[in-house]
């Protein structure tokens, strides 16, 4: 297997953009990425696109060539990947696999979602399609409801508190306020977070990520060729995609995501590192409880200690191991199909030392965790300075 490097990144702002369509967002991210990588569209050998529900949100299918042609990429394989909220994490995993295998050298990986043209109840219904539509969804489960039930069980078994979950929201909003590309650039207080409007008990709006439009892209190449294009390549040290059952009620223990644990173990082994080596991370905080559980599943802390870890401030920007310096899905926004590749962009930006006000102190080894549904897909990527 060849070593693989990220040689370019590109992101749109995340937010609600009534004047922008899905393609214009994806094309903007792709073009920014090509420029950052010093690669022309005609050099791209394959295009992998993560998108969860373009057909439902905007009525457009056949998205990969639709976007690629807008970027100026034609003739080559262009393929869409769908794995719920891990759609572009999955696209990235498969793109890295194909470059590592020697099939292609230059692959562009994009992710996009255009969500805000639909009403919140309609978005809620479309997102619920990532659950088991013959069981939990038919009964009335939304994604906030599934994660609310996960939170309740975590609180019951480990004594996790509302304050601990709110601490995640307060931290991620504080970071997002400094991120020029974030959807919600607003600092919130603990009191506000606790008094938010109920979505699905015990989760309030402040426990839930945002409904956003946005796109992100990364260019990858064999590490041995990276210096032809950039003087700041970032190496993919470890990567794994894993799966589990879709229905929450078929999981034996809902206070942990088995897929994340397995992906973490595989990625750590591939990178030859342990959890304690990871200096900072972008974790999939679709809900505050998901960030807490991710810190446990990735072995940053022992099982059941994630809530306390967050409340003690150890995951803050200036903490011992910053989590979601970008603002996370909570504040940066969660255009579902763009999230996985967006996380890779954020980790690469940190490793390059280009994160400005949000730069973490130690930034040579970072991790991104992208979760699909209530844990049916997980992608964990470990990136390091090349």
């Amino acid at each position, binding site marked *: 297997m060849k070593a693989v490097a990220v040689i370019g990144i590109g992101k749109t702002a995340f937010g609600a953009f009534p004047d922008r369509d899905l393609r214009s967002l994806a094309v903007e991210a792709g073009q920014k990425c090509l420029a950052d990588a010093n690669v022309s569209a005609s050099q791209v050998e394959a295009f992998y696109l993560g998108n969860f529900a373009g057909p439902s949100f905007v009525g457009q299918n056949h998205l990969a060539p639709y976007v690629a042609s807008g970027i100026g990429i034609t003739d080559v394989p262009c393929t869409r990947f769908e794995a719920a909220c891990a759609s572009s994490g999955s696209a990235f995993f498969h793109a890295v696999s194909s470059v590592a295998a020697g099939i292609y050298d230059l692959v562009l990986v994009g992710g996009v979602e255009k969500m805000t043209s639909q009403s919140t109840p*309609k978005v809620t219904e479309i997102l619920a399609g990532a659950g088991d539509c013959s069981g939990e969804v038919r009964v009335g*489960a*939304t994604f906030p409801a599934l994660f609310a*039930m996960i939170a309740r069980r975590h609180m*019951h078994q480990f004594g996790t508190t509302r304050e601990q979950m709110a601490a995640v929201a307060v931290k991620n909003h504080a970071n997002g306020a400094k991120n020029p590309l974030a959807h919600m650039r607003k600092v919130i207080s603990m009191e506000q977070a606790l008094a938010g409007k109920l979505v*699905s*008990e*015990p989760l309030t709006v402040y426990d839930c990520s945002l409904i956003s439009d946005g796109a992100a892209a990364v260019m990858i190449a064999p590490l041995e060729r990276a210096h032809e294009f950039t003087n700041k390549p970032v190496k993919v040290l470890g990567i794994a995609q894993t799966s589990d059952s879709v229905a929450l009620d078929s999981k034996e223990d809902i206070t942990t995501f088995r897929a994340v644990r397995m992906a973490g173990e595989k990625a750590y082994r591939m990178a030859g590192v342990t959890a304690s080596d990871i200096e900072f991370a972008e974790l999939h905080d679709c809900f505050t409880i998901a960030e807490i559980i991710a810190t446990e599943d990735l072995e940053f802390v022992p099982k059941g200690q994630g809530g306390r870890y967050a409340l003690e401030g150890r995951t803050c920007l200036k903490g011992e191991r910053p989590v979601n310096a970008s603002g996370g899905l909570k504040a940066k926004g969660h255009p579902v199909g763009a999230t996985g590749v967006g996380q890779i962009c954020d980790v690469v930006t940190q490793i390059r030392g280009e994160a400005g006000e949000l730069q973490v102190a130690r930034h040579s080894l970072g991790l991104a965790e992208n979760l699909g549904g209530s844990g049916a897909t997980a992608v964990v990527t470990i990136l390091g300075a090349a």
Partner: protein
Amino acid sequence: MTAPSQHATVYTETVVHMAPEQFTADAPYQMAIVTLEDESRRTVRIAGERVHIGDAVEFVEDRNGIPFFRKKA
């Protein structure tokens, strides 16, 4: 799907305030994952009194394919 077991225990629960489009008229409603007598789990709706983790519940009826359980007296 097999007929629901009559008795179960609440494994976890939530009250949904923001419902998907097809259930907005029902909100707020309580749902739960319950552990049935055979140890399998099932996602159900709760009728009547609010339930908590560990509560014993029993099957009430199936409404439009949705199983409803309620707190055992």
